[in-house]
């Protein structure tokens, strides 16, 4: 049966890369459409009229939006190489931490890198505390998903790759080996997996983009320019 899988994404976005990582892990062929988020295509607006955002997965003409919703859809549709456990308790756990990353970690990390100067110390503390929860959650596992990359690892792509890039772009230090030995090890393992490695945006290009969009970072002690 001929299947058509489209992914509307943006090269630098961890959210659209999540979708590509999951599809690659499962060996699913797809067509990628790069969106200019400053000039959204009619197709994107048609497929995601509510949020008008990437990523959107379109499977045989039917759109699915929101990266974590898409990841679960991918896992339920293509059952090889599962990214979620069958156990309800483990599933709930993965969902909890994925939500934690998106709703708590990412805003805190962003604030620590590019937030108000006067709140910088506090933002660093908060981001550090949140990352500590993830460090503890990892325990002795190779991946958050156990022996293989799972949904939570994919959701944690922000921590595994983008965080290091944010740090370099903004001159902030967050994910140090002394404070987060487990997370650092995990990050190295994570970016070495070929389905992941193939889907990481080029580092220098991303740094340049971030500096251009958000400024040189609070820690660099320059005033942020819009």
């Amino acid at each position, binding site marked *: 049966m001929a299947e058509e899988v489209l992914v509307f994404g943006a090269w630098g976005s961890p959210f659209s890369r999540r979708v590509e990582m999951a599809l690659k892990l499962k060996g699913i062929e797809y067509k990628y459409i790069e969106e200019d988020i400053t000039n959204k295509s009619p197709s994107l607006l048609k497929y995601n009229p*509510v949020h008008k955002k990437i990523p959107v997965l379109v499977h045989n003409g039917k759109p699915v939006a929101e990266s974590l*919703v*898409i990841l679960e859809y991918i896992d339920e549709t293509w059952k090889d190489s599962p990214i979620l456990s069958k156990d*309800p*308790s483990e*599933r709930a756990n993965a*969902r*909890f931490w994925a939500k934690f990353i998106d709703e708590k970690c990412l805003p805190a990390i962003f604030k620590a890198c590019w937030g108000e100067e006067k709140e910088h110390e506090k933002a660093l503390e908060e981001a550090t505390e949140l990352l500590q*929860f993830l460090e503890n959650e990892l325990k002795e596992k190779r991946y958050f998903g156990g022996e293989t990359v799972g949904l939570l690892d994919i959701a944690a792509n922000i921590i595994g790759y983008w965080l290091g890039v944010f740090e370099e772009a903004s001159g902030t230090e967050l994910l140090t080996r002394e404070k987060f030995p487990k997370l650092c090890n995990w990050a190295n393992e994570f970016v070495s997996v070929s389905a992941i490695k193939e889907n990481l945006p080029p580092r220098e290009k991303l740094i340049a983009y971030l500096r251009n969009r958000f400024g040189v970072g609070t820690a660099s002690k320059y005033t942020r320019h819009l």
Partner: protein
Amino acid sequence: MADEVVLLDFWPSMFGMRVRIALAEKGIKYEYKDEDLRNKSPLLLEMNPIHKKIPVLIHNGKPVCESLIIVQYIDEVWKDRCPLLPIDPYQRAHSRFWADFVDKKVIEVLRKILFTKEEKEAGKKEFFEIFKILEGELGDKPYFGGETFGFVDLSLIPYYSWFYAMETFGEFNIEAECPKIVAWAKRCLQKETVAKTLPDQKKVYEYVEQLRKRFGNG
């Protein structure tokens, strides 16, 4: 094997109501513990150390947090009866998307209307924008889930118990602008599980009045 199910909750919480409805739909017996949010119990802090929030479902000693995650957990554990999510993956994704939309949008607008002065008018405008979108999604269906009450209905209906408080303090009429939503809500309330779970709107109003006084805009 006897299941031990405990729910840490707070009676006016729309998030807690979602879990209560799910448990009622599945006919699960559980122990309900109402938390004093100004004096959180050691059990709550132990079971949800990250967010320190209700609701928390404790199943045979293991905690599950975040209301929609708890509802999905309940649906997956007690899968032999009364499914809360559709079977088809695309329909499931559709349900998750809309429940996520409710989560992202409604509480924030409620906060603006009830607990701020300067953002109240903007909050009211956004309220109608959000609920118009929801009305569009509902369409002519009896429920968001189609013919039967489902995940999206469950995620949204608890907010109905806050409508009287919203209308009174917000000084606006929800039914006039969003008649379909109010009709849908009344339809949901015909279900015993929903009717028994949702607190009386006047009680919620009194609670909100207290909160507003406490935070200085009553």
